[in-house]
């Protein structure tokens, strides 16, 4: 009964969201409107994983505990769970279990491997403002990087456009399952994101062609000009929907403005590439001016300098554990950044990859950040640090009600590790997405291979 309540509430929430979207015309949610999700979970038998050390993603660590997965959902956690005879038993003694790992900043699919010119589809660098493009229309589902990430425990990710533009386009939440179409990967019920960018990249790309923006002040003027248009667009549609005249003429649709209006309606979440503390503060003021919420700053190399401000305003920071110095806006990067963002009450720290290599070992990135925090005296446990790559990115992607923690009723997105995931030596033994085994390190039958890689590697004993 408990379980039903939970699931029913989830379903109800989804339905309401869908309803509100049909009036706002922003198609901001993955199973409504065009290009809707066709994701169907793989079917798998019920599984109980026993005697594991479980990090739940809620801040809890359970030792010697069991977790039961059935019909794609997490049913129960506890010790000595009694299960039906048909449930597959997995002994995870000496092993660790975590929620499926979530990367909130990925370019898999849009900048796939191999890095051919023909597949470089990640950034529409033709105008500083391209909110009309959708990353999903560039996703190549055959990117071998998806398989590599799955072997690292990645069950969901946000695929974003690149950062050359002030408004880069819509980001899409994906389930990391093998599929022939991206619709088959689209996370059901997930809202779209809008990728925006601060700082050097837009300046460099457009300023270099002597077009706006050439400066940071040009960047901000560029954002404001678009938000003014978006507010007017939204107003026009709101008025249209509010009046009773059946014969009133429907306003002209504008793809770019549809995305921005979706942000102003709260349907689309802002993911903003921004390194410097002072620029993040500028953007928070910008968001106030136009009455929208920044969901997360990405890269946020200087977030530690304004950790209190971010926590106060409920803004997450998605960060690297140790990247720094490759450009001026990354020059003040410190390895305690993540731990310091996590510190204040309400602090929301996320470890992201932005890298086809990094996404394969996000657990190690979290481990490095945790260790540096502890070295600075911040006393962070694995049970807390695991949130940086599970619950926190799930919340910031708007899928926190469905995944990101191991709680009854949630999607059974689960990783079984061969040891402590906060170790360089740890490997994912099994990865479950919606209760289905999508990766097994010791069973080739559960190691998918993309169409592209078929036949590319003759046997090692050639």
């Amino acid at each position, binding site marked *: 009964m408990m379980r039903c309540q939970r699931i029913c509430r989830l379903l109800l929430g989804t339905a309401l969201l869908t309803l509100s979207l049909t009036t706002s015309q922003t198609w901001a949610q993955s199973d409504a409107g065009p290009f809707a999700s066709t994701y169907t979970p793989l079917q798998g038998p019920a599984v109980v994983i026993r005697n594991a050390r479980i990090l739940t993603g809620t801040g809890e660590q359970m030792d010697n505990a069991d977790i039961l997965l059935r019909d794609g959902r997490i049913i129960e956690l506890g010790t000595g769970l009694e299960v039906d005879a048909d449930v597959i038993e997995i002994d995870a003694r000496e092993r660790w279990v975590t929620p499926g790992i979530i990367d909130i900043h990925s370019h898999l699919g849009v900048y796939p*491997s*191999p*890095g*051919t010119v023909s597949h470089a589809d990640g950034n529409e660098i033709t105008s500083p403002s391209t909110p009309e493009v959708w990353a999903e229309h560039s996703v190549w589902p055959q990117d*071998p*990087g998806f398989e*590599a990430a799955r072997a690292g425990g990645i069950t969901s990710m946000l695929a974003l456009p690149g950062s050359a533009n002030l408004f880069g386009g819509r980001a899409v939440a994906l389930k990391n399952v093998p599929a022939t179409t991206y619709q088959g990967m689209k996370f059901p019920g997930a809202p779209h994101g809008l990728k925006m960018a601060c700082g*050097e990249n837009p300046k*460099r790309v457009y300023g270099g062609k002597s077009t706006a923006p050439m400066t940071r002040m040009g960047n901000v003027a560029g954002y404001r000009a678009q938000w003014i248009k978006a507010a007017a667009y939204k107003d026009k549609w709101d008025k249209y929907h509010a009046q009773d005249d059946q014969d009133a003429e429907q306003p002209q649709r504008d793809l770019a403005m549809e995305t921005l209006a979706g942000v102003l309606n709260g349907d689309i979440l802002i993911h903003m590439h921004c390194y410097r503390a002072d620029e993040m503060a500028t953007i928070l003021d910008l968001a106030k001016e136009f009455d929208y919420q920044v969901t997360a700053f990405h890269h946020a190399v200087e977030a*530690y*300098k304004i950790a*209190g401000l971010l926590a106060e305003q409920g803004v997450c920071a998605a960060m690297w554990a*140790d*990247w*720094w*110095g*490759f*450009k*001026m806006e990354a*020059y*003040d*990067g*410190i*390895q*305690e950044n993540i731990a*310091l963002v996590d*510190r*204040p009450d309400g602090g929301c720290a996320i470890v992201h990859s932005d890298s*086809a*290599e990094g996404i*394969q*070992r996000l657990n*190690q990135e979290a*481990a*490095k950040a*945790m*260790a*540096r925090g502890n*070295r*600075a005296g911040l006393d962070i446990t694995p049970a807390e640090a695991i949130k940086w790559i599970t619950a926190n990115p799930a919340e910031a992607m708007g899928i926190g009600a469905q995944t990101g923690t191991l709680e009854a009723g949630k999607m059974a997105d689960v990783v079984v590790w061969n040891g402590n995931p*906060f*170790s*360089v*030596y*740890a*490997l994912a033994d099994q990865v479950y997405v919606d209760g289905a085994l999508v990766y097994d390190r010791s069973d080739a039958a559960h190691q998918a291979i993309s169409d592209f*890689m078929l036949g*590319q*590697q003759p046997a090692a004993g*050639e």
Partner: protein
Amino acid sequence: MRYFLIISLATMLAASALAQPVLIRGATVHTALERQPLQNTDVLLNNGKIAAVGESLRAPDNARIIEAGGRALTPGLFAGITGLGIEEVSLEEDTVDNSVALTNELGMMRPEFDVTLAFNPLSAVLDANRAEGITWTLLGANVVQSGGLIGGQGAAVSLGHGFSPVLEGSRSLFVNLGADAAQFSGTSRAAQYMLIEQAIREAGSAPRNIEFERRMLTLTGRGILARYLKDGRWIVDVDRASDILQLLRLADKHDLQLVILGGSEAWRVATQLSEAKVPVILNALDNLPGSFDQLGARLDNAALLSEAGVRIAFTGGGTHNARKIRQIAGNAVAHGLDWYIALRAITRSPAIMLGLADNTGGIRAGFRADVVLWSGDPLEVTSYAENVWIAGRPVNMDTRQQQLLERYLPENPDTPRHYIK
């Protein structure tokens, strides 16, 4: 000028002679020379060298004593190929010196370009990595941006030898082959061998004999390349198995001393590499088919090469994050490489590859006193360097990053943060 050199050399020798001796007591010493670590062992650093390794060593009167309490002591780590000291902010051209774009003709090469001349020991980037246990690196002449197949010369440098960093014997010529370099060979990799053969012939000819031929080298460049043909190390960036085999043929023909860099598909030709005694410097995290030259990339490349008897070293952290080299080694272990070989791949093995076998990359009396004391397993991501010595001197741990941390760590400081320093 010569006078100045003598003075600075004397100053340096004086500094190392005057450095306080250090006795590290009770460490678990990973010598990188023998497989088994030495338990509860003392190491004495004096006059820039490791003076003694053993049990219950007596400390000189003026020695600083460090109680290791069983923690791991390793040789100072090799960063791989980086721009430490020659690259401050990657996207700010004025601060980056690792390539030359002087060539004005397709195929023109400048082997006389020597990146080590740009080395700045005061770089904050170098400081940040040194505090993490990185004590030396190989400066590479960046081939791809330089406008030719030959990028120029680099060398191993110590991060603790001030303005005279080059470790003698390590100078190397950097070459790039394969798809990455096809833009410099008329778009075909086949032409790369043609161009290198032409350069080799030119280097070996008297100037007057090639007057009417299209020149690829300056007079100076000819002399330099001739030196590398006679007795010098060629570090060649190449990934595809077939390219590696072509390169082995070229090296055999001209009797070149070869090191493979990258080598994503090196595991496929491990036997040939082993027979030719050609080592490989690789990134153990390169498992994606980043290009069509790397379709065979895999996580156990290091393990397979090592099993076949190929000497390996690691690279891949880049300049700013050179400290990532430990994580790269640790991942290689997770994918089948022996732990001892992984440690050697960031200490002893690169020293042997780079002509520094005499005194670098190991803990033994007479070796360079470059050692690191770790908080835990040196290859583990949650461990960190607690003490680092180069030539017996403790390195600065109060880096720019540390100072930024200390400025922003207090939650409600009494003074404005800009006065915390």
